[in-house]
């Protein structure tokens, strides 16, 4: 009974969690570093940044939201969301003029997937940091 009451206690407010989420999005692993999970934060930083850097060096293309038939919309909008989920890495590369057209070839194709996957992995890192900050996970 007492355990039940304990588990129903409200966690930290969204205002307290928002900085962790924002920092996790902007810099991969930074949410973990902020929460003093240094080892895990550094691993996330290296893995997501490494994935994104490989994508750039393979000259992968960035997605832009496009409308058209359903498949085109889903692929391009989903890809764009995946790209911007990398946070500062995406913003910096766009601000510094990275604009690779979508060209044929397996290396470019892998590069495009690396760029999107880096963002999706960062989303996983954000969720993990959120759960740690909310006290649901150590």
């Amino acid at each position, binding site marked *: 009974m007492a355990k039940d009451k304990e588990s129903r206690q409200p966690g930290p407010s969204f205002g307290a969690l928002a900085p962790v989420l924002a920092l996790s999005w902007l810099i991969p692993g930074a949410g973990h570093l902020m929460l003093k999970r240094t080892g895990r934060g550094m691993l996330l930083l290296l*893995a997501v940044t*490494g*994935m994104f850097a*490989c994508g750039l*060096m393979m000259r992968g293309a960035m997605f832009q939201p496009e409308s058209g038939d359903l498949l085109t919309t889903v692929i391009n909008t989903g890809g764009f969301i995946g790209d911007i989920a990398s946070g500062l890495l995406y913003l910096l590369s766009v601000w510094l003029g990275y604009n690779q057209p979508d060209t044929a070839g*397996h*290396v470019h194709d*892998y590069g495009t997937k*690396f760029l999107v996957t880096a963002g999706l992995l960062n989303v996983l890192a954000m969720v993990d940091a959120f759960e740690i900050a909310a006290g649901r996970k150590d």
Partner: protein
Amino acid sequence: MPKMNLTHFEAAFLFSLFTSVVLGVVTKRTDRDRLHYGVYVFVCFFVALFGLGWLMYLGHG
């Protein structure tokens, strides 16, 4: 920025490595479990990589 020109295998190796690290870090609750899960995911990627590679080779005739 230097340009990387990788084979399918090298690209798939890097993809598996980075993805396994993140999945290992975010999924489990103890460091030991994280390490085990990261290695497990990496091995799964490689089994799938070689399995699909052979399937495509044999299916191609």
